[in-house]
């Protein structure tokens, strides 16, 4: 490979520049300089200085990490990069350091997302435990109300951001290209950009702790967000803008990858259901998130330039914010849900050794959800005072969305039904997801109906409902997928006993915590109150006690990951006997995935039919595994 000689010899300097180290150094310098300059030019406007500092951080971080190098070379280099240079950019022979650079390999980006999601979940869950600590007894005794509000807001937005990326980020990047038979994503540089955009937003968001926090909760409602005097609110707005850009870039990349890089024979009809779930999810994100970004641009303009998008005294309206926010906010639930549900279906087929039940029905369910999810945002404004004639249609289509959702979950149950079940931790989490989603879904009907929502809105019932749907259902789906694909991604096998312990602690703790909060909500307890009234003390104490089990589950999972990384068994190439393409490549996965691109001639769910290798050519034969599920199920 003579081209390899054209690649620069690596050294300490070339390793550090560009890398995350040079990015952070330049970013901090940029933030300080921009903040000071704007602070000096525009005195008495703290928000302007803070926003300038964030802008400086972001731009110079990306200069430092080398994100603009490719853009410059695209336009002005004398030649296109050689393949050897592309491989070096993809992290070839760079060991662990490739995870700290602007590396383009989709598997590196997937691992970066996975580590970030786990870190954010850990931080977010710590916030949740602080909330439960505060709510365990009446009286605001651990935190003052302002600190409590900031904790609630940070917990909310960290968890929502994590949940949005938890499937499409790690598995959409690492697994999806292999699943469709591609060597990489369509735009490897944009792939790296999407991750580092997210990364650059995290220090910005955490800076809110030093700037007075923010009082609005995760929704950032205006005009409260505009009237908040401390600059901690700017951090929230800037994070959302950065996150929306990151999501848009990632969505564009994933969609393009699936549109143009499917291998021969991978028709839309043969696409694994997981790929469908991710595609529809990112399509929703691509079209829904711009309104959220615009809303935060408006809030920042109100705060920095004294415009009045949301101030009634100058002709603005809080309803404008609510519309812009919830136009994103409700599809966002399905941005989270679709890939998680699809991953659950994938696991249900593999661990039941059955073809998906009603695959077309499940697919139409996903598509139906994606379409209807754009028509339901108004139900979040039932009690806003807007009182529009559209309330009834919103009520109708909010209830309507339960039909395609029901199709999909019926498909999962039908797949598991009478299957040769292999009760792995992944399938346990799928079963937990089914149980929790029934509770979350049914309680959602009461909130979709205007008369009952008038009573329940703004109370703990709502908190319990959306935790059942987002955490009990979708985060459970994530953990199922985590245990399913971890061996392929990391090359090591997680301890199954600890994984099952993780599940049972989580499920029991979760049910105890949030069923108690349903009861507190029915008693009338409001959300977002630091001080629990004595009449709600018992259910809150029970919820807090059960939350200890959730905390134990978190630490169990963390311990499992740590000991696996240190001394876990090597995983098989096809750990679960799956039939999708990612199980046909070696573990660890080579840099460009396939030696020869596979040709697909059937769907990946032909369990019980002749071996996949008879139907396909090339590299499609599943590799043998000592832990084939048939043997266990039949034994």
């Amino acid at each position, binding site marked *: 490979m003579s081209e390899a000689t054209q690649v620069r010899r690596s050294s300490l300097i070339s390793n550090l520049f560009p890398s995350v180290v040079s990015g952070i150094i330049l970013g901090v310098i940029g933030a300080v300089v921009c903040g000071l300059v704007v602070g000096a030019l525009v005195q008495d406007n703290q928000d302007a200085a803070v926003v300038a500092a964030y802008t400086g951080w972001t731009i110079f971080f990306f200069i430092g990490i080398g994100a603009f190098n490719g853009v410059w070379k695209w336009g002005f280099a004398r030649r296109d990069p050689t393949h050897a240079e592309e491989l070096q950019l993809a992290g070839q022979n760079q060991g662990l350091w490739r995870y700290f650079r602007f590396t383009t390999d989709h598997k590196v980006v997937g691992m970066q997302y996975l580590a970030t999601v786990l870190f954010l979940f850990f931080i977010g869950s710590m916030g949740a435990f602080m909330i439960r600590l505060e709510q365990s007894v009446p009286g605001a005794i651990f935190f003052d109300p302002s600190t409590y509000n900031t904790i609630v807001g940070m917990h909310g937005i960290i968890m929502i951001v994590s949940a949005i990326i938890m499937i499409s980020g790690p598995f959409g990047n690492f697994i999806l290209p292999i699943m469709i038979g591609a060597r990489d994503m369509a735009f490897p540089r944009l792939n790296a950009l999407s991750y580092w955009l997210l990364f650059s937003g995290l220090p910005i968001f955490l800076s809110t702790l030093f700037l007075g926090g923010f009082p609005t909760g995760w929704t950032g409602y205006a005009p409260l967000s505009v009237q908040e005097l401390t600059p901690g609110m700017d951090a929230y707005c800037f994070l959302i803008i950065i996150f929306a850009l990151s999501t848009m870039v990632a969505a564009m990349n994933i969609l*393009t990858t699936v549109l143009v890089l499917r291998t021969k024979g991978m028709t839309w009809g043969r696409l694994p259901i997981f790929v469908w779930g991710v595609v529809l999810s990112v399509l929703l994100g691509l079209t829904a998130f711009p309104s959220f970004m615009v809303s935060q641009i408006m809030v920042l303009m109100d705060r920095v330039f004294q415009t009045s998008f949301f101030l009634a005294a100058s002709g603005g*309206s809080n309803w404008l914010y609510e519309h812009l926010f919830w136009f994103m906010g409700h599809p966002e639930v399905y941005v989270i849900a679709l890939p998680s549900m699809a991953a659950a279906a994938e696991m249900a087929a593999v661990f039941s050794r059955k073809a998906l039940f009603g695959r077309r029905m499940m697919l139409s369910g996903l598509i139906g959800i994606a379409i209807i999810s754009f028509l339901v945002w108004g139900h979040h404004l039932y009690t806003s005072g807007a009182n529009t004639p559209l309330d009834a249609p919103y009520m109708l289509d909010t209830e309507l969305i339960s039909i395609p959702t029901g199709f999909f979950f019926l498909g999962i149950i039908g797949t598991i039904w009478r299957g040769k079940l292999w009760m792995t931790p992944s399938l346990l989490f799928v079963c937990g997801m089914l149980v929790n989603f029934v509770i979350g879904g049914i309680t959602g009907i009461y909130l979709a109906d205007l008369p009952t929502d008038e009573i329940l809105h703004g109370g703990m019932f709502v908190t319990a409902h959306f935790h059942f749907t987002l955490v009990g259902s979708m985060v459970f789906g994530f953990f199922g997928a985590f245990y399913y694909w971890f061996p392929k991604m990391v090359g090591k096998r997680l301890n199954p006993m600890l994984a099952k312990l993780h599940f049972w602690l989580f499920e029991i703790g979760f049910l105890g915590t949030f069923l108690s909060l349903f009861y507190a909500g029915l008693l009338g307890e409001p959300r977002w109150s630091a001080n629990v009234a004595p009449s709600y003390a018992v259910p809150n104490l029970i919820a807090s006690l059960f939350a200890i089990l959730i905390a134990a589950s978190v630490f169990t999972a963390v311990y499992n990951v740590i000991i696996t990384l240190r001394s876990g068994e090597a995983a098989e190439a096809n750990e679960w006997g799956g039939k999708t393409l990612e199980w046909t490549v070696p573990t660890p996965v080579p840099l460009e995935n396939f030696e020869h691109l596979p040709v697909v001639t059937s769907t990946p769910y032909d369990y019980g039919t002749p071996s996949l290798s008879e139907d396909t050519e090339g590299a499609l034969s599943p590799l043998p595994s000592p832990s084939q599920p048939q043997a266990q199920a039949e034994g």
Partner: protein
Amino acid sequence: MSTSSTVVEETHELEPHILAGRARAAVILFIISDVMSVMAILAAGGYLSALNVLNQYRVPGDHPPSFVLGLIVAIVIILSALSYYVWGRGAMSDERGVGQSALLIAAFVLMLAATVIQIIMGLTLGYAGNPYHAYESVMILVTWYSAIHFLLSAIVGLLLIGRVMRGRMAGRGFLVEASGYWWYYTVIAGLLMWIFTLVLI
């Protein structure tokens, strides 16, 4: 870990039709996303206008951005789109030469000029502020959002000029086509937002 080197590391160039499809798909998806943000801004303006909260949406003295500057920008971006179109037709059929390159440079210079004029328009809106009323707020946002659109197109034009000067456009007609999608979209969005400033009451 997961991406250790193997013998697979050999040249894997994407086929031309995939390169073309990739470029087209990405730009169209980017445009779809941007359309949603433009729609959000325009819908916000229309919504606030319809609500007219406390009759404070637009107060006496509030005026739209300069009509003359807006008209000049409109003419300039249309000319830029025409230049790009003529250049694109030549580039797609692999025509070369100074005249051909001049058309792209003209398209770029015109887009850059539109950016500058739009910025001047934003700086000379003449609103008193502190605070800006809702109508003024919408006008400020629309004006500057358009400026950012034009700037993005100008950057795309600059990169294309770089590739043309380096002789790296041969056989890359899809780049001309896909960049053109964005170029024309910017012009359409710019005109739409200008008309919006004229008709929004």
